[in-house]
């Protein structure tokens, strides 16, 4: 110990000497020797170092003599520690020997390849895929279309379109005059007529002109008017000639333009935009894919909805899923309706947030969920601002035709401090007095009662793309974080131009369009109620009476017990198509696909979409056809043909 104490003050001295030595060495090398001797003096004496082992052994021997037990215990401990170290390292080396040899690896790999590897898809079609009809649309003319079914393009049926979400008749307005279809029929398409459907409408099906006349008598829908203006100007023959004769292209194209531009403003905008910009935007919005119609559309919809901003995506589905994923992150809480459509589910999945589901449109269940969260908060002693919380629902549910009870949802949301992400894709342009969606229907305020609202422009507006609206913060954030915005190409500019004009139509004559749509909706529900009664409540209406998406389901009763709903309803849809009304067999996404696309499988159903372009005749006809089809399929069921 004494040496150590002696040594300590010398450290400074040694340091000083070393410094001196270095300094001296660098400046003058003359008195280096002097310094070296000085340095040597300051070192601990050599004898102290030599004596150290002796001192140590003495100290140790003393210890052993005084307290042998202590030494014994400590030595044992020391040895065991050393042993454990050594033995552990030995274990490691053993595990290295444990590794598989190349040969064994190859065996495992071959075995996997031969035996365990699953095929890319399961052999055969997914279960139930054959039951559901598939359609191929050959031409769309106003509210009518030519459709073939089940991969058989030779049989083409002329049908009235109740299958697509053309709520405001924007697409009906997009199409060419009636005359061209007659030519098409006469020239190349052999329209099949089913013997089964021998009602008065069959005759008019052969020739759309007949139906058209009746229609015009009934009422003058704007779209038809537009079509009517130039009904005789085009012919398919003319177009074909043009293709063959390239020299005439320019003048023909000009003719086309004249004809198209005179038809209706929506179509005019589309054609003009096509001529100016071509089709594709050729890049994402960030990289020169932003073309002025995109900006115009964002501006227009912002104004229309009274929001602070809008952001345009190139696809309705990715609008929804990207928006949800942009705001909801790990650790956030989402309270989601079980009946939401697939893009919302995809967004929820991508967000990786905590999800709590509530029963479809069941407000009691929703309040149960939010109350349980609040209780948990109380237990944990945290406020509602501890995490971001969202309620997610649709304004008008695509898969069930229900309308969200927004008044109750908004009340709960305010009470428990949630934000609301509302998907108005199907309610925009269909609900509310001026078509501003479910918020308008319930008299709720955007940004105040629903923070984030997504709208697909593919349904009522009849274009491509989707927008998210909200306050400035919400819109700006998505421009970098919305993956469908940031990493995907922009939508073709002509679709944005078309959407601007369609929006303008909605803005300038909401009464015409929406009153017509509401009247039609009401009319069809009235008729359907009578229809259901006629069928002795075998078929029931499953959708909300305000919804233009109509769902009809098979009632659960003794008669229908052994009927496979999907097969039965699909067969009805097929029969309807043969008789001239295009409907869709819906509500079997999960079973059909074999993967869980939707959270809760909607009931198998027949879906009809009412449009403002439909006439009363159209709807009467559809129900007549439906009635006949149900009878015939039921008959076949009883006979055991299905």
């Amino acid at each position, binding site marked *: 110990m004494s040496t150590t104490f002696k040594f300590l003050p010398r450290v400074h001295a040694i340091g000083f000497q070393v410094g001196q030595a270095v300094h001296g060495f660098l400046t003058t090398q003359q008195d280096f020797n002097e310094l070296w001797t000085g340095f040597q003096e300051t070192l601990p004496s050599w004898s102290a170092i030599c004596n150290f082992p002796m001192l140590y052994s003495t100290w140790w021997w003393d210890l052993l003599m005084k307290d042998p037990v202590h030494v014994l215990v400590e030595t044992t401990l020391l040895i065991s520690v050393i042993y454990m170290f050594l033995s552990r390292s030995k274990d490691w080396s053993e595990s290295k020997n444990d590794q598989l040899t190349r040969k064994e690896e190859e065996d495992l790999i071959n075995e996997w390849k031969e035996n365990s*590897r*699953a095929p*890319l*898809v399961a052999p055969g*079609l*997914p279960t139930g895929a054959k039951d559901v009809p598939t*359609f191929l*649309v050959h*031409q*769309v003319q106003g509210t009518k*279309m030519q459709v073939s079914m089940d991969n058989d393009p030779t049989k083409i049926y002329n049908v009235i379109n109740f299958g697509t979400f053309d709520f405001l008749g924007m*697409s009906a307005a997009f*199409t060419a005059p009636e005359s*061209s279809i007659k030519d098409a029929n006469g020239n190349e398409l052999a329209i099949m007529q089913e013997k089964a459907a021998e009602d008065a409408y069959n005759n008019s099906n052969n020739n759309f002109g007949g139906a058209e006349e009746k229609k015009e008598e009934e009422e003058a829908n704007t779209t038809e008017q537009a079509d009517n203006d130039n009904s005789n100007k085009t012919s398919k023959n003319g177009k074909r000639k043009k293709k063959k004769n390239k020299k005439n292209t320019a003048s023909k*194209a000009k003719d*086309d333009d004249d004809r*198209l531009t005179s038809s209706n403003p929506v179509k005019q905008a589309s054609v003009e935009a*096509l*001529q100016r*910009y071509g*089709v*594709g*935007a*050729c*890049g994402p*919005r*960030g*990289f*020169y*894919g*932003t073309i*002025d119609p995109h*900006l115009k559309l964002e501006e227009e919809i912002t104004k229309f909805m009274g929001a602070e901003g809008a952001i345009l995506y*190139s*696809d*309705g*589905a*990715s609008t929804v*899923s990207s928006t949800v994923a942009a*705001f909801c992150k790990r650790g956030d809480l989402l309270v989601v309706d079980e009946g939401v459509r*697939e893009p919302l589910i995809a967004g929820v999945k*991508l967000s990786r947030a905590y999800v709590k589901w509530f029963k479809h449109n069941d407000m009691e269940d929703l309040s149960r969920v939010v109350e349980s969260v609040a209780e948990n908060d109380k237990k944990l002693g945290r406020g*509602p*601002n501890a995490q971001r919380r969202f309620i997610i629902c649709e304004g008008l549910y695509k898969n069930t035709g229900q309308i969200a009870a927004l008044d109750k949802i908004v009340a709960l949301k305010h009470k428990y401090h949630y934000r609301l992400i509302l998907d108005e894709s199907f309610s925009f342009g269909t609900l509310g007095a001026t078509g501003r969606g479910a918020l308008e229907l319930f008299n709720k305020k955007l*940004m*105040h009662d629903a*923070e984030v609202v997504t709208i697909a*422009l593919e349904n009522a507006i009849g*274009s*491509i793309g989707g927008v998210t609206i909200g306050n400035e*913060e919400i819109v700006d954030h998505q421009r970098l974080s919305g993956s469908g915005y*940031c*990493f995907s*190409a922009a939508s*073709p500019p002509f*679709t944005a131009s078309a959407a601007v004009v369609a929006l303008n139509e909605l803005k300038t004559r909401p009464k015409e369009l929406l009153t017509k749509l509401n009247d039609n909706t009401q009319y069809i529900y009235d008729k359907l109620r009578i229809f259901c009664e006629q069928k002795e409540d075998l078929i029931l209406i499953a959708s909300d009476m305000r919804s233009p998406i109509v769902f009809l389901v098979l009632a659960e009763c003794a008669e229908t017990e052994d009927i496979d709903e999907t097969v039965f309803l699909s067969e009805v849809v097929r029969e309807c198509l043969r008789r001239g009304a295009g409907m869709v067999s819906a509500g079997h996404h999960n079973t*059909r*696909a074999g*993967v869980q*696309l939707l959270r809760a499988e909607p009931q198998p159903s027949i879906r009809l979409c009412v449009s403002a372009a439909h006439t009363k005749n159209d709807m009467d006809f559809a129900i007549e056809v439906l009635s006949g089809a149900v009878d015939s399929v039921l008959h076949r069921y009883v006979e055991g043909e299905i």
Partner: protein
Amino acid sequence: MMLGPKALLRQRMMDGNKLARLSSDGVPACVEASSQSTDPASDQDSDDEFIHESSSYAYDEKCLGKDPYADVRERMERLAANDRALHATHTIKGSTKSHEEELSIPALTAMSTYLAYTVLIMCGRIRDLLASIFGGRYIRQPSKTNPVPSDNRTFFAPIVKSWEHFYTRRLYHRIQDCWNRPIASNPGAHIEVLERVSTDSQKSMKLVGPIDSIPDERTRNEYTEGEFYTEAHNGAVARKCLNLGSYNYLGFADDWKNTCQDEVMGSLEKFPVSAQASRNEMGTTALHRELETTVANFLRKDDALVLTMGFNTNATTIPALMGRGDLIISDELNHTSIVNGARASGAAIRIFRHNDIAHLEETIREAIVLGRPRTRRPWNKIMVIVEGVYSMEGEYCDLKNVVKVCKKYGAYVYLDEAHSIGAMGRTGRGCAEYTGVNTADVDIMMGTFTKSFGGMGGYIAASKEVIAHLRWKCAGSSCHNSLSPIVCQQVITAFRVMQGQDGTNLGKKKFQDLRDNSNYFRMRLNEMGLLTLGRYDSPIMPVMLYIPTKIAAFSRECYKRGLATVVVGFPAVPLLMARARFCISAAHTREDLDMALNELEEIADILQLRYARSPFSS
């Protein structure tokens, strides 16, 4: 002798002396040297193939007219052949990691980049602090007249996370004029970029509008001076620029009126803009079917499925194919849509180093041997997902070896050809054709119509069975709105032109022009000493900028000189790897490219961008 990565890089840089050392048959000396050290058989056949390939790229004057690149053709073709051979050889050998080396940032540059970010972040923090005291435009003030409940911080957590928002408001917004530039013309070779101005210190950008609306004469003159001033169709102030940013590879945006207009307008007579239903309901039109047959025939696959959006094609198809108990092995640089799809699928995901076949093999082996985590049961199936051309790297996939490895281990191959379809290969059949892979060996071929075809949407081409399944299982097909029939027609017409079915050799000319333009541009960029990523024959060429301040400076300098270029920063690329990216089109002429290159030469001097020469970039 093995060449080090730096040497490889240098080799690829144009150097007259080095060219002299190339052996006479077009195979570079260094390849011969390296082939001695490896299995001669494998190298032999790959060399043969590339000689064959390069000879097939001869310019056909009879068919295509005068060759604009006659004076540099030999040099260009040699460099391209050289590059192809290098790409093939060093990946066969395993990982020489030349690409990684390329992507890694030199220490000095990294330091200066970090320094730049430190300064930016510190300034941002100070501004935040000041804003929190004095208020500012980024602090959302609850309105007193019409209070919105979600602004109340005692009950609501902020809607955006702090770091992301910090990045947006303090870094991105300062230079946001470099992105989202709106244009007022078709996205062809020459575009009219609408001038924008910010009245709130770059928080938002507004269009300048018509020239008469500017009250200040000096500002007016600023816009009207110079050769680039123009008025857009709506009278707004615009700037004529050469477009080096759009994915208009085959130039269908430029000659749209001659090639596609008639048929597209014709389709508008028969079909609406939107089919307004999903593919499985009433959204399938005859045009969809026609397009699917066209795609399937073009790629020599049994069947195809077309969906409305390229992004969603990946994001919905991958979950339909893979699920729990499956394994997805994905290239580290794969696009977000693939990442989203893989994440949504619920399958396990492993990443392999970009284009590193040895690492891919190691990953697959390990996965098969070890099985699933925890339970150790064998995987149901394994799928390897790669892209044909990586959009931010310009690098094409080493598909031949990916397929070889996948075949060996029984993994399925999913190839995303978003950027390569139409843009690679002699007849535009994408990366598979370019690398000489039989499309039958690629299980799923995915691609988009946005880029080369000037349309929108995406396709999946695969066997009949797979497509039949996808039609039902894929959400894009069963739930989402279908592709617009009008766009279908556009793509069908574009396919016809590409395959020469329109009776002209326009398609052939487009492929030749695209390849020549790209190779010429790349050659000159390399000569300039810019650090250019990617490979010859790829139309995408990123140039590294690294330092954040150079992002804006580069973009603005280019814009000033009438070049519309794309600069890429976070989040599209890692924070340190900021770059500029050129996308070459068949519609560019040599004059256009020469003009651009001369301007770039000047910009490279001003901004010190010659990183390929030294880390000091001078």
